[in-house]
């Protein structure tokens, strides 16, 4: 049972850690793909754009 609980905790902690890491390393598409010649709008949380 201890192994099971430890595995659950590790999975959650690892997932959160990866999410934080990726959010630090990666940039939103609206920032990453904006150049001097093209501005990409911020889609927000909905990838199809503002409702």
């Amino acid at each position, binding site marked *: 049972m*201890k*192994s*099971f609980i*430890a*595995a*659950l905790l*590790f*999975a959650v902690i*690892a*997932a*959160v850690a*990866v*999410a934080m890491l990726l959010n630090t390393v990666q940039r939103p598409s609206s920032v*990453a*793909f*904006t*150049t001097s*010649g*093209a501005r*990409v709008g911020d889609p927000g949380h909905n990838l199809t754009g503002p409702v």
Partner: protein
Amino acid sequence: MSKTISSLKAVCAAVLLLAFALPASAQLSFKPTAQAVHEDQLLNALKEGDKITGRVSIPDAMASSLIQPAGREWRDFQRHKLPIIGGVVLLGTLALLAIFFAVRGRIPLEHGFSGVKLLRFASYERFIHWLTATCFIILGLSGLNISFGRALILPLFGAEAFASMTAWGKLAHNYLAFPFMFGVAVMFLVWIKDNFPNRLDWRWIREGGGLLRNGKHPPATRFNTGQKGMFWIVVVFGALMSVSGWFLLFPYLPANVTTLQFWTIIHAVIAMLFIAAIFGHIYIGTIGMEGAFDAMGTGEVDLNWAKEHHSIWAEEQQGHAPSPAGAPRAMPAE
């Protein structure tokens, strides 16, 4: 007279109109504008591998693909063929397991519990198993929701609940993929030494692993042929799911859209087969065989269970007792 002149003008006008109208109607038998804008004809005119591309100034080069007919086949597969294939594989596996259980019943421990325990899996082995297993279950459920949720769950819970559930499932799927990949890699390193095929495997296969009737148990080392098969399924399918999933997580890594579509299909098809295989694993580890769950539950199995299903391993463990802490050893039940 004037009436005659008017009639003559009318006839001339009609002749002239006819004279110009005929070539015009002949030209209009081919209507380039009307046909060119017809999307289906345009797409059908493109051969396999063709695509219409443009020029973009943003760093995402894949955005330059405007029309790619192969995308329709991919969409058709994802929306229509995959749910059918997946449904048949998953429901078929469950049906086969149910029939097997109805016919064979729970495989009993023929000589009963001896009360003597053998440590089968150390705590770190159980940890890595449950880490991979719990991640797999969440990944599997959230993945199945992508294929079947719209048809099965949306009508039950409504659009808002389904949208929230799917969004959270997507987040869980994206990030629990990492501990899952870690778990598969560690399991591979920890257990590969016990999972190479040997001469006993052929005998195990010929005797049906002792699963088909009572009183017959082919000898096996730490892992029998069925368990070795499951190990390699997890390793190979896990690797394929990891590579394909990596491309889905980072969709700008593949060279083009076609490659990305290829990996999405690999991801989806292997997922269905993987889940079906794990159905079998869960079955035999829980209700299918008496005493089997203890191996991953407490880490200890009964000596009689070990003798019946892993006779060579049981003899090795008894011969080595008492062993150093952390290593498999025989111990009395508490």
